[in-house]
């Protein structure tokens, strides 16, 4: 399977990354190279093998469903590129 312009454009859009034409050309070659290489996994027999999502095998602990906040709004907003009256500012999203 090989990746073409339209696939790279689609994936970049899904990943929300703007790429220029030059990057697009490079990425097509690089992604094909890398995916061609990982394709060798197809030769590994994984019939009846359970997928392994994590090596962690201790049971996760339940906790009380209680909200805890250790921070105040200003601390959080101080890192935002733009804020106003205690809110994050984004470009207009509704007409």
């Amino acid at each position, binding site marked *: 399977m090989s990746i073409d312009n339209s696939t790279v454009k689609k994936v970049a859009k899904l*990943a929300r990354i703007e790429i220029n034409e030059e990057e697009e050309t490079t*990425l097509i070659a690089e992604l094909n190279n890398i995916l061609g290489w990982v394709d060798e*996994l197809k030769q590994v027999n994984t019939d009846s093998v359970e*997928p392994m*999502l994590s090596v962690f095998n201790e049971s996760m*602990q339940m906790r009380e469903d209680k909200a805890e906040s250790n921070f105040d709004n200003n601390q*959080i907003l101080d890192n935002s590129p733009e804020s106003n009256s205690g809110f994050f500012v984004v470009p207009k*999203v509704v007409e």
Partner: protein
Amino acid sequence: MNDFENLSISSAIEGLANKNFTSLELTEFFIKKIEKNKDLNCFITSTFDKAIEMAKISDQKIKENEARPLEGIPIGMKDLFCTNGVRTTAGSKILENFVPFYESTVSNNLWNSGAIMLGKTNMDEFAMGSANTTSFFGNVKNPLGSKVNKELVPGGSSGGSASAVSSGLCLGSTGSDTGGSIRQPASFCGLVGLKPTYGRCSRFGMIAFASSLDQAGPITKTVEDSALMLQAMVSFDKRDSTSSRQSIPDFSDFKKLSIKGKRIGIPKEYMIDGLNSDIKKIWDSGISWFKREGAEILEISLPHTKSALPTYYIIAPAEASANLARYDGIRYGFRHNADDLNDLYQKTRGFGFGKEVKRRLMIGTYVLSAGYYDAYYLKALKVRKLISQDFEDSFQKCDLILTPTTPNVAFPIGEKQTNPIEMYLNDVLTVPASLAGLPAISVPSGFNSEKLPIGLQLIGKPFDEISVLAAGAVIEESRGF
């Protein structure tokens, strides 16, 4: 002033306790040394005022006989660990101005043990790299390059941490290891690098790359120092859902553990094409050292070894593509202005991330996308199980596994930049233990013909860091330098 350059953490603790010098003297020595060695580019942010302040407190504690385990020990903190009030960038433009208002558990544990922060060390952007050539803040140089009159890479992604310890700019440093990012730079810089069992160190406040693999660990000059730092770093933490509740041993007990009668497995699959001949020789020496100490050497097989790297390059980018979705230019970090929201996301991420990060986010997004999920991601998860199973089977027969850490020694800056896979191959011997979540250490074991360091890797059973450290100490005692 004393020359503290070659001091180990353990000897510094002794020197401080005996009042041979103060923490303030130590700290001021390293501050001067960092300023003199700016060309190595080990630090992204220095925190000298904070360091002096912490050193004064430490000296007071020592005076009052209240010294904590790492009291007054100046260290470097990888810029992947969030530090309260101190800029934390993960080596990325997208976090260039990010100042956390909370502290990572690992760094907090270290400060509570009395360690002193000299600054935040340089690293590959979001820990994605094996040469420290992907940082937005520039390449890091390996101090050992001056031995061969070349500009060599320190390895990555914890390149700043390794270079700083190797050049004597601090006594130890923290690293994080997703596929080899502690062990490989430690090997390239002639240091001890330990990746503990997955779950030993909390991931809270550690900027996420691939959450099922990320694990913090120390980079130090000696095995004893490694045990000392590890002790301070580990803890159960309810803020990390995969933090382990396993009991935490006294890691310095490694000194009491004999290797005699232990079974050391030598996996034949690690004898890969392209393994440097000097490294092969040191591997053979390592085998003979363990024989001499009374260990039993046996050949083992980890049949899925060659699938580990491709598996890793599906799983790690997939997890990264989810983790790095948070960098949207709205709540923190860099923002590229735009007229509509989608454009803002795309431009922010297009300009804010470097090439390698974008490449991996694209791979990750692709392998998780509709139609390819089963063929790539699910397949990789199944192969991961087989890789893990290989280790489980082997550990029925042996107690530890001995391998080289890297297929080659440190290479010149600028090499392996044209084909990403060439760079990825650096991690071929470290990635399998990462996928299986096992503790593994790299210990300096010898040199190539140019006198560049070669590290051997010891992989242990889950939560058996003590045996890994004990075997590391055997190498230290046997190598003859």
